[in-house]
């Protein structure tokens, strides 16, 4: 049965296309520098810059564009679509436009600062490295703009609940609201850091800054951010993957439980990025380590539910035996091409999840902290399920809105598999290098992999070359993807424009009960946040001191 299709007003069409295609265009720059980084690191480019873009400037761009701008714009667009589609209600379109305009201005401000070389401070922007104020202001505007969209959906959700008493909230809505609740938990501390610390300090209004407080606020944001990336992808997996596999979602309740566990456990985990930091007690680091272990559970549960759902689909299509049923899944179907993107993302996430547990392990982290292992890890999470799901859905939605069929369908089907192979090679290279001490975020061609340098480390030569090999394959995969996307945009409309989301039914369709209400879970989350963050902040205030002034990345001379 073909899914129900909705048509959109011209205003919504324009808004959604801008929300999806603007970050996709910017993404090409981020992808370009992703490839270049692997070449610099392997010593294939031995220079501080290439074609006018400096290594650390490009690295900042890669992080900000790929991880913040693209993901945030996409999630806002996807949220708008889910509300329009599943709640059959239109969020206030003026607020939606205001949100988009704010995010656009913020992105342009931050991009200007980065591209003009005034903000080579990476996407973590730790003070006292100082960027141009427009970088911080731009970041704040992206965040606040995205809040507007979130607040814009809440009345639609409440109105739907009122009109549909006793009905379960559609899974897509549970997913996207979970993502933005987590986003809100994450971005409040970021806003505090940016508005009350970084902007006044970068403007020169105040001189002193407590670096540990800034770092802690950043990671208070930085880890729930990871789930803000992941949860929209999970939403697609729960809502669409079973249907695409030809079956039903194995358990409705497991899906809802997963999302609620994310509400609780996503935020109180940020200190696991700071196990090597001074000024924070071991006890609190342990607590954050264990809560991070807790957040692994919804992902384990998801792995089970999704595998069971795929098995159900495969058996419905005639699959037999313990393992032979895998063969019945639509890996290379050009009608159900979303399946390949989702599936490859899940395969990568098997590695992403396990390496994530290693990172979160309080003292095992010592082996991998800030080494190349870390980007090796998150290119199998952010660069795995999140990225593949987001680009696939971008293509899917834009094609639907414009009433087009996908161009080069055979090429499109191969994109995720090429990406999967590229990321695997890249990540294995980085992980093995990381275990040998290879640092992340470092232009290694200038020292560690240069045989004429006193810092030369022979064993990092082949690991970085693996990274470059993987990076090249990833790049080719994206060349293929953008070829498909652009060719699709250039085609003539051939179908009725509108959005029809593949939507799964449930195999076990239990009543949702407590899992269909956000309020109790949000309360538990706030309580847990208070327990896990208030005491460490008090401790940091007592055991660290502020430093005055800042530093531009180009000079060790203090800016008073």
């Amino acid at each position, binding site marked *: 049965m073909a899914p129900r299709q909705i048509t959109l007003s011209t205003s919504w069409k324009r808004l959604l296309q801008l929300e999806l295609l603007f970050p996709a265009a910017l993404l090409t720059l981020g992808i370009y520098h992703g490839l270049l980084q692997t070449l610099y690191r392997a010593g294939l480019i031995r220079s*501080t810059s290439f074609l006018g873009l400096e290594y650390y400037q490009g690295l900042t761009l890669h992080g900000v564009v790929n991880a913040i701008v693209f993901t945030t714009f996409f999630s806002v667009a996807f949220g708008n679509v889910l509300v329009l589609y599943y709640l059959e209600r239109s969020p206030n379109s003026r607020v939606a436009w205001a949100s988009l305009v704010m995010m656009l201005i913020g992105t342009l401000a931050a991009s200007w600062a980065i591209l003009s070389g005034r903000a080579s401070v990476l996407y973590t922007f730790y003070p006292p490295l100082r960027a141009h104020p427009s970088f911080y202001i731009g970041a704040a505007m992206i965040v606040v703009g995205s809040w507007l969209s979130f607040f814009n959906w809440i009345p639609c959700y409440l109105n739907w609940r009122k009109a549909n008493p006793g009905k379960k909230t559609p899974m897509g809505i549970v997913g996207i609201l979970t993502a933005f609740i987590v986003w809100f938990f994450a971005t409040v501390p970021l806003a505090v850091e940016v508005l009350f610390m970084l902007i006044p300090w970068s403007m020169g209004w105040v001189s002193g800054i407590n670096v540990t407080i800034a770092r802690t606020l950043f990671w208070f944001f930085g880890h729930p951010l990871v789930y803000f990336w992941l949860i929209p992808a999970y939403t697609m997996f729960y809502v669409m993957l079973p249907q695409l596999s030809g079956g039903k979602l194995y358990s409705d309740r497991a899906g809802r439980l997963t999302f609620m566990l994310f509400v609780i456990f996503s935020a109180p985990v940020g200190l696991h990025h700071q196990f090597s930091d*001074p000024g924070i007690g071991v006890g609190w680091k342990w607590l954050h380590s264990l809560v991070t272990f807790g957040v692994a559970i919804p992902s384990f549960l998801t792995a*089970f539910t999704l595998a*069971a759902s795929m098995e159900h689909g495969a058996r419905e299509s005639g699959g037999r035996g313990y393992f032979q049923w895998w063969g019945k899944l639509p890996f290379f179907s050009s009608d159900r091409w979303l399946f390949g993107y989702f599936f490859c993302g899940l395969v990568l996430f098997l590695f992403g999840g396990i390496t994530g547990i290693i990172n979160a392990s309080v003292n095992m982290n010592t082996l991998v902290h800030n080494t190349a292992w870390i980007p090796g890890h998150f290119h199998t999470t952010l660069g795995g399920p999140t990225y593949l799901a987001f680009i696939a859905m971008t293509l899917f939605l834009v094609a639907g809105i414009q009433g087009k069929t996908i161009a080069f369908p055979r090429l499109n089907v191969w994109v995720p598999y090429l990406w999967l192979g590229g990321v695997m090679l890249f990540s294995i290279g980085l992980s093995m290098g990381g275990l040998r001490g290879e640092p992340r*975020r470092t232009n290694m061609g200038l020292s560690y992999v240069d045989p004429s340098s006193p810092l030369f480390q022979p064993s990092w030569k082949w690991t970085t070359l693996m990274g470059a090999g993987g990076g090249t394959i990833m790049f080719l995969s994206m060349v293929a993807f953008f070829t498909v996307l652009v060719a699709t945009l250039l085609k003539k409309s051939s179908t009725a424009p509108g959005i029809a989301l593949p939507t799964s039914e449930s195999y076990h369709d239990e009543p949702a009960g407590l899992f269909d209400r956000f309020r109790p879970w949000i309360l538990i989350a706030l309580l847990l946040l208070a327990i896990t963050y208030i005491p460490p902040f008090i401790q940091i205030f007592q055991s660290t001191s502020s430093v005055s002034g800042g530093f531009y990345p180009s000079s060790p001379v203090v800016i008073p």
Partner: protein
Amino acid sequence: MDRFEKWALYLSGGLMVGFTIALVFSFWILDIRIPSCLWDKEPFTVGSVEEKRPGEYEIHYVAKMWSFDPPLVEVPMGSVLHIYLASLDVNHGFQILNTNVNLMAVPGVVNYAKIRVTDVGDYPVVCHEYCGAGHEKMAGILRVRPAGFQYADTLRKAESAKLTTVAVAVDPAVKQLLASKGCVACHSDNGSSGVGPTFKGLFGRKETLADGSSVEVDDAYLRESIRNPNAKLVKGFQPVMPPLPLTEAEVDLIVNYIKANK
């Protein structure tokens, strides 16, 4: 929830409990620790190595843009090292390769790790946190010598100098600094003559002074001449250079730059 789902949930919960037990074991039984709060240590700005008790060393490391102080530390095999780490400017990373020492140097607070060195060899120190333009050139070595070795002080100084000059060779900041303070008006960096001596090949040169005595241009001489330009004036030059208000970090930068300009 059905039976299989419950199993999946219990299994994943059990796995995490198992991992936790392993961590507890490695933390308290194998004694693999991570940094905590230090309440009694103020941030410091100068690096040092001191033998506190026989076989037990206290090392103060300062990470700065873009070097470690001290760049080279030599200790006998079997020593216990108490490593204190501070930052002079921005965040730095501090990993001693092939050991369990992996720390952040954060301005405004001191970090600490303790290790026992059991194998002879050179252990490179890597900065793994982005700290600006010269990040990839931050160089350090922890050298573990056979038990009972004698310090060879001059040799260590020479090697340390080599390590600290790695970063500055490509440093764009120093040129900016030399231009902004007006140094380049009188001192060339390519050997051409000017109002003052050229920086090229200056370090290590024997100079005859205005009073007829001679001096070898070393670290101390350069520092003195920057701070107090006319104290030991080189023969053939006029006493026209003013003393400049430079910070210690700026003087470091200029001295390292001159050292590297061979």
